[in-house]
């Protein structure tokens, strides 16, 4: 980079490598920027720095042995990925899931979603230069991690769901702790609101910055909070109900503006909605088994291909299975939401200033291992 500076300044534009090690990319993502002063002429994300070929791993191991991989793609909402994968295999192999297990799945997934959104919130404000909200968010997130650790045994890369059920049952301490957490978090949200959301500096940095239109979201297949911030009322939990979501009453926050602020607000509102889901699920939690009556020994789905999507914290996570009737996948396609969400980055950042482009990148909520898989 050093040697080329002299040549570059004589031109109209210069190229800037954002990453693969850069504080705002949250991991090893590189963005090739062509800049005119501080304006971005062209932005091209370069992926693959931590590509691990999970899909090939899926073809080389039995269905059950792929389970630990799920937690290692989107490590911030690992349970959503767990859920997506087991649900797809259950659909393919026609495994019945007891109701209690489904409720436990929903409760833990939603807790995981809150923890993911909290971390995003902190990291996003950190991208904008505010340090303190990150630590406050971590404080809250620790509470969730403790809860999830007490039931799943791990804090981040969960491997908790099993075909037809879950690994462990939840106990009264977990239920009480979750209720306490919700009570505490409800009191905490107005603080975030006053400290961050209503802060004039933050508003100025996010309002009308990085607009993503409805049409752009559709052309690029953006889902999750990115789509919902652009006025698209699409949430797999409502749109394509799975698990026990149809029995629970919750809203899908949708904002029409399409700017970074809208995406921010969607996620903040989703924390509240997730808490509502958890509360109802805890109330309705039925007694019973957490694993199918007949233990699932060998999973052998019928020949054919199957698709199952779930709403992960970052959007629609889909699993496409192609089975040839053996005890491992013939083809396992993992559709990760941020892959599609990031693909619009090049178009959306045209003509933008560098700090705004970073605000936009933060608002997309990227998890690089999930993009690279």
């Amino acid at each position, binding site marked *: 980079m050093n040697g080329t500076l002299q040549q570059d300044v004589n031109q109209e534009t210069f190229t800037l490598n954002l990453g693969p090690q850069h504080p705002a990319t949250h991991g090893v993502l590189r963005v090739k920027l062509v800049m005119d002063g501080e304006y971005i002429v062209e932005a091209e994300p370069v992926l693959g720095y931590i590509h691990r070929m999970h899909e090939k791993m899926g073809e080389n191991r039995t269905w059950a042995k792929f*389970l*630990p991989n799920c937690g*290692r793609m989107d490590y911030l909402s690992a349970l959503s990925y767990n859920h997506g994968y087991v649900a797809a295999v259950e659909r393919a192999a026609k495994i019945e899931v007891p109701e209690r297990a489904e409720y436990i799945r929903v409760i833990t997934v939603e807790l995981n979603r809150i923890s993911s959104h909290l971390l995003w919130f902190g990291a996003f404000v950190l991208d904008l230069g505010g340090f303190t909200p990150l630590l*406050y968010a971590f404080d809250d997130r620790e509470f969730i991690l403790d809860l999830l*650790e*007490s039931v799943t*045994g791990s804090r981040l*890369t969960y*491997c908790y769901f099993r075909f037809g059920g879950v*690994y462990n049952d939840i106990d009264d301490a977990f239920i009480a702790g979750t209720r306490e957490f919700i009570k505490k978090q409800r009191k905490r949200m107005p603080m975030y609101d006053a400290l961050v959301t209503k802060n004039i500096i933050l508003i100025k940095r996010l309002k009308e910055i990085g607009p993503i239109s409805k049409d752009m979201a559709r052309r690029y297949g953006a889902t999750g909070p990115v789509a919902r911030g652009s006025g698209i009322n699409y949430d797999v939990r409502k749109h394509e109900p799975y698990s026990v979501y149809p029995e629970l009453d919750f809203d899908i926050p949708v904002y029409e503006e399409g700017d970074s602020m809208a995406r921010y607000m969607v996620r903040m509102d989703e924390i509240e909605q997730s808490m509502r889901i958890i509360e109802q699920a805890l109330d309705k939690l039925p007694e019973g088994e957490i694993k199918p009556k007949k233990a699932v020994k060998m999973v052998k789905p019928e020949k054919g291909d199957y698709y199952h999507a779930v709403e992960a914290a970052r959007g629609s996570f889909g699993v496409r299975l192609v089975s040839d009737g053996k005890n491992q996948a013939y083809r396992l396609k993992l559709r990760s939401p941020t892959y599609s969400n990031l693909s619009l980055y090049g178009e959306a950042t045209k003509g933008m200033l560098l700090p705004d482009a970073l605000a936009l990148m933060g608002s997309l909520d990227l998890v690089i291992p999930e993009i690279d898989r």
Partner: protein
Amino acid sequence: MSGYFKELISGTKSLFIGLGITGKYFFEPVVTLQYPHEHLEMTPRYRGHIELIPNEETGEPKCIACGMCQKGCPSGCIEVKGEKREGVKGKVVTKYILNFTTCSLCGQCVESCKFGALRFSKEYNLASPRKEDFIFDLIEKLKEKS
């Protein structure tokens, strides 16, 4: 024009509110745990590396070296060997090596153990610059413990 002043005033107010919040937290007690000096008790379900459960009477491992854990491990990080001994039902485990460097703590070995001979330990203070330190001989570990 009125919007200008409105924004100015509300904006300034929001800044002072923000200062108030962080100022309040300045005087509140810290929430962090001073890790090397203080320790947390792990929750009962905490997944550390696996360990063998001893037979309460003899102190020998309950494991009969059936190899189900080895078979069920996605990362192939378990190596079990056993031999037949006289007077003992089933096999006696002679070698149980866990390569913790590749273990992903998924719990499928514990789940697949029909004899209740495996459990997760509560150890988490594991750090070493050497890879070899994470290849555990679980039988040794069990002996050390008792």
